[in-house]
């Protein structure tokens, strides 16, 4: 028999296509321009680097002071909350006021042009010295050039730095092989240094994305002829400035002492950047009813440390809380959107567009029978008080809420998967509870085999008119015995078509593989929640039993088209991991999130009206033509519409989607208690992530806003959030 690799080689030789000539040309040109930008940005940073590391913070402070001053009347009119916010802004602004900051503002606008020349170039045989900020972030350079104090601090504080290098830097892989004696495939433990490195890489990549979009956008806009090359370069330069801002704004205080090091891996993306409406008027994403991130944040804070920024998914914090949005009436759509537009707590010159979606609250008495398969991880790592015992207690709570006609089966998996309880009617509670009590931790995790068995059981239980769901309870450590998590996800994605839903409940912390949990739940038409206390179990499994277990709409997608005549820029707060491509909105084959009965989902945009002093992109300076609103939008400018909301969803079991449309105007109705509380939580989440967009607005502002809007808070969730904010405030000071 021939060597399969030789066969593959020949097949590749025959079928590998030639690269497209046009794209080759375009790529080379763009890369060339980027090289110029990188060089220019360096020169710029060398100059700004002479100032203290905190210049970005000061600059922001002054910017906000100016903002606060120019719009005082607006704030005063906004009532008590706004007055509190104003006081805070002024106090901090005074504290931060420093002479050079106004110069910095001017610099940022001009720098890209000046920076094109290779100022400070040390010569061809040596790359330009990176400024200190970058050295902290670029481990390769840190090793080579230790003199900067801050860089040395990083090395001293973070022995994991070298490993971190490897994960993102190609050339340093040599170092790994010789210096790191860990199993070859094991991921480097996440550390502060790695985070900051990743943040920089991510910022560079954002920069690249934004450049690409700008460059791609341009040729299409000219009538008949492409704009001159010069113009492209200038727009690119402008975009770069803005992104550098966020990069630098995030850097002060970065290279501090490490956080608790563990093997948790979090699924997250960089914060969605501010988009320019005239360039990218449409924002598309999938709804997300997960709440796992909130539990992770709570657990971190109550254990005395700030959560890792990448563990914070803002939409999951916001969606953790019940809101009393009006639900749908009659027998139309299964949910109803409510949109309000109000002032942004952290920026007086922008508006918060708050989209609340309330799912139908079904009559619980005539709900369809439930088939539940508890798939329980009984591996050795589950043998901790906050894992298996908590899991058993949680399921006991839940069993008490089931109807007699519901059925429960239990599958356990550890070294091998096995059925612990065959499908049993909930009427026979004794048998179910006994089986739960028999669960015992031991062995290693083989999640794949367990999931296969659970789905098999679930398919056998399923019947017409019933809802079948696998509930996977685990500490998320899927690594043992599985060669490829993606295969597992693929398996679950295929099972989705059989109509079986999947919920993933994470227990404990330490090796909670949040990223895998997310991926599994997303691929399995399900939700992920992290359960760290019995109260949380009650919330997820009992209070929301109906919603968690009965989907009323599948593949719910949101698309918002902004009106360039009224909105200059916008930014989606959170939902980074749920972004969809614009064309995916109408593609029913593209999966999205589910809404359960009674669920509320919230999405928040921060929008900058045309003419607001808060506009970040000075697009007019470089590309006046591109910034002009298209003719179509012009004709609708009189409508005062800010945006147009489109929602797509599928009724459970249907393959084609329905469409809901709603124009959004400035005067649609202002924020109520719910919206303001959601804004406080969104602000809190941003502070936990990096605060790149919240300026001077700080923890006490978030606390004040939340306290003022706890509402009736039947279950005490909002009061708990206020406690967490206070914890975060004190932890942020001591860190």
């Amino acid at each position, binding site marked *: 028999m021939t*060597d*399969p*690799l030789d066969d*593959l*080689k020949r*097949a*590749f*030789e*025959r079928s*590998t*296509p030639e*690269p497209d000539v046009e*794209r080759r040309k375009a*790529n*080379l040109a*763009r*890369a*060339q321009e*980027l*090289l*110029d930008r990188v060089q220019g940005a360096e020169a710029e940073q060398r100059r700004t680097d002479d100032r203290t590391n905190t210049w970005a913070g000061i600059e922001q402070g002054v910017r906000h002071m100016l903002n606060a001053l120019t719009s005082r009347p607006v704030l005063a009119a906004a009532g008590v909350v706004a007055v509190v916010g104003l006081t805070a802004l002024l106090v901090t602004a005074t504290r931060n006021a420093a002479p050079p900051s106004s110069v910095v503002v001017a610099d940022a606008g001009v720098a890209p042009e000046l920076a094109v020349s290779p100022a400070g*170039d*040390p*010569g*061809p045989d*040596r*790359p*330009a010295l990176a400024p200190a900020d970058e050295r902290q972030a*670029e481990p*390769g*350079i840190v090793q*080579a050039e230790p003199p900067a104090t801050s860089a040395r601090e990083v090395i001293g504080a973070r022995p994991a730095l070298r490993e971190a290098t490897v*994960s*993102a830097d*190609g*050339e340093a*892989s*040599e170092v790994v*092989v010789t210096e790191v004696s860990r199993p070859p*495939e094991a991921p480097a433990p996440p550390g502060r240094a790695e985070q900051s490195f990743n943040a920089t890489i991510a910022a560079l990549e954002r*920069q*690249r994305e934004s*450049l*690409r979009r700008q460059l791609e956008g341009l040729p299409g806009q000219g009538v008949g002829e492409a704009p001159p090359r010069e113009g492209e370069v200038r727009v690119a330069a402008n975009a770069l400035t803005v992104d550098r801002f966020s990069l630098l704004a995030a850097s002060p205080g970065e290279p501090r002492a490490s956080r608790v090091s563990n093997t948790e891996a979090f699924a997250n*993306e960089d914060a969605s950047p501010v988009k320019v409406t005239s360039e990218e008027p449409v924002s598309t994403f*999938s709804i997300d009813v997960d709440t796992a991130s909130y539990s992770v944040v709570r657990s971190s804070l109550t254990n005395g440390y700030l959560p890792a920024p990448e563990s914070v998914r803002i939409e999951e914090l916001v969606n953790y809380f019940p809101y009393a949005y009006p639900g749908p009436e009659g027998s139309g759509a299964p949910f109803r959107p409510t949109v309000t537009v109000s002032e942004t707590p952290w920026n007086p010159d922008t508006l918060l567009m708050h989209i609340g979606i309330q799912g139908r609250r079904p009559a619980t008495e005539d709900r369809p029978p439930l088939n539940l398969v508890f798939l329980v991880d009984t591996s050795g790592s589950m043998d901790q008080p906050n894992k298996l015992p908590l899991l058993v207690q949680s399921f006991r709570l839940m069993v008490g809420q089931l109807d007699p006609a519901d059925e429960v089966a239990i599958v356990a998996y550890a070294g091998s998967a096995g059925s612990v309880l065959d499908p049993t009617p909930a009427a026979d509670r004794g048998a179910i509870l006994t089986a739960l009590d028999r669960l015992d931790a031991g062995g290693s995790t083989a999640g794949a085999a367990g999931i296969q068995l659970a789905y098999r059981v679930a398919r056998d239980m399923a019947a017409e008119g019933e809802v079948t769901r696998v509930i996977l309870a685990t500490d998320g450590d899927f690594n043992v015995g599985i*060669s*490829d998590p993606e*295969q597992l996800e*693929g398996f679950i*994605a295929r099972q989705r078509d059989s109509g079986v839903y999947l919920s993933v409940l994470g227990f404990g912390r330490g090796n909670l593989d949040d990223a895998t949990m997310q991926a599994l739940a997303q*691929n399995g038409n399900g939700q992920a929640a992290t359960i760290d206390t019995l109260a949380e179990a009650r919330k997820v499994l009992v209070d929301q039993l109906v919603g968690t277990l009965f989907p009323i709409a599948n593949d719910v997608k949101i698309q918002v088209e902004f009106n360039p005549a009224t909105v200059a820029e916008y930014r989606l707060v959170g939902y980074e*991991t*749920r972004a969809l*491509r614009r064309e*995916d909105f109408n593609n029913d084959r*593209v*999966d*999205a*999130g589910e809404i359960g009965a009674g669920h509320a989902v919230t999405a928040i945009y921060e929008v900058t009206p045309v003419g607001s002093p808060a506009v970040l992109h000075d697009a007019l300076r470089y590309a006046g033509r591109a910034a002009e609103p298209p003719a179509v939008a012009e004709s609708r400018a009189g409508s005062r519409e800010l945006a147009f909301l489109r929602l797509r969803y599928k009724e459970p079991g249907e393959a084609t989607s329905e469409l809901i449309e709603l124009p959004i105007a400035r005067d649609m109705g202002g924020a109520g208690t719910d919206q303001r509380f959601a804004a406080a939580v969104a602000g809190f989440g941003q502070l936990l992530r990096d605060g790149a967009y919240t300026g001077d607005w700080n923890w006490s502002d978030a606390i004040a806003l939340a306290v003022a809007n706890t509402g009736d808070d039947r279950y005490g969730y909002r009061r708990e959030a206020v406690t967490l904010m206070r914890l975060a405030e004190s932890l942020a000071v001591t860190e």
Partner: protein
Amino acid sequence: MAEAVQHVVEARWAPVGRCSSVTGVAMGDEDLVQAAAAGDRRAFSELLELHYDRIFRFSFRLTGSREEAEDLTQDICLALPAKLKSFHGKARFTTWLYRVAMNAAHDRRRRAMSRAKAAEGWGDIEMSRHAEATGRAADLDWLRRSMEVLPNDLRDTVALTVDGEMTHAEAAEVLGVSDGTVSWRLSEVRKRLRAMWQEETGR
């Protein structure tokens, strides 16, 4: 065709003999990178010209679709300007370049995953159906079925080594694993492919 490819490969792998327009002396990859990192536009352009096709072919082997390969190539090209500084000449430039390319590919996979897309590249049926409509249908279909049975780490290893341009040691460096792991993975690839083909022909 094969001959032409061979010719290009040789030209690209020649370590010396190219002339940087800036210094007027012959420069190898490593010198070009140094100059490019320092902002020498022509050195950068030359470097990218030289390696573009290599990047594209590697992208194709990683993704299995022309469109995906074009997109990935673009990602890599646009990532290079910012990353050049982290090349210190400890490794061969091509090794470093493959590492950058591999990271970009993983990035794309991760982003695709977070967009709730179940499959990407080799696993994407839609892509493959599209390809079936073209002339290379049979070869591609066979390739697709073969690559699909491989998990990502094995696929990556195949993509790196299958054209014979890289030693196992170099591939190991790119993948951040030991030489032994690369050899093990390749034997695992042989095993899985044989099993799949036997299953197909046995029926």
